[in-house]
């Protein structure tokens, strides 16, 4: 799993690539939370077109970050979710809480 983080205040852009399992979860959580210490960040974009595998540990990471963003009345978006990740996100009804947007739509926003 590789993670790339870009701060574009008030947004944080996180690009995940590879396999999002329990093994990868801890370093991703740490890397994002370190950036989220900056309370000026009110929008978290997690880009997932290159996530090739995801299990429920990945769900835990996303819902945990969603909780942090909610607490500061911020927003969180999953961008360009890969089919591999989409399946388990649906299974766990994650979209009921976290909005997902296609990759192109997010580009237009910038």
């Amino acid at each position, binding site marked *: 799993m590789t993670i790339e983080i870009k701060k574009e205040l008030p947004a944080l852009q996180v690009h995940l690539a590879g396999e999002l399992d329990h093994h990868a979860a801890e370093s991703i959580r740490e890397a994002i939370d370190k950036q989220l210490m900056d309370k000026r960040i009110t929008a978290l974009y997690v880009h997932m077109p290159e996530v090739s595998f*995801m299990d*429920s*540990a990945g769900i835990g990471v996303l819902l945990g970050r969603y909780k942090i963003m909610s607490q500061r009345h911020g927003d969180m978006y999953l961008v360009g979710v890969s089919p591999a990740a989409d399946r388990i996100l649906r299974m766990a009804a994650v979209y009921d809480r976290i909005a997902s947007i296609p990759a192109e739509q997010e580009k237009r926003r910038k």
Partner: protein
Amino acid sequence: MEAANQMRLIIPSLSENEALARVTVGAFAARLNPTLEQVSDIKTAVSEAVTNAIIHGYEGSEGNITVYAAVEGRRLTVEVIDYGKGIADIAEARQPFYTSRPDLERSGMGFTVMETLMDKVTILSQKDQGTCVRMEKEILPPPSAGQEG
């Protein structure tokens, strides 16, 4: 029909072995000609079971995990076995969103995912003896491939 086959993988309870376990079982199941989606289902279910063994069976301490898989006809059986603390209340552990470790930011979806992706999930567990999660899945060929076999 091909002869029955089986495999056994014994690995220490390190999180980096989660990928090894799921990839190995995925490769083992390849002889059944599963679709990409079926392979993904099997790998995800194995990943959930192995992660549970590491986090809950051994609570992060070291121990061995046995991953056993067998193919008979079109049926794949996978067992993920740990020799750790066991599950006190199996019915409770199977509840969606239940987690014994909310401190670890677990989603509580592990068994639900396994049950959704596999045909049958059986949990055998005894306190301080360990846990065996047995998962079974019939790998049926996609309807369009019916003429070829």
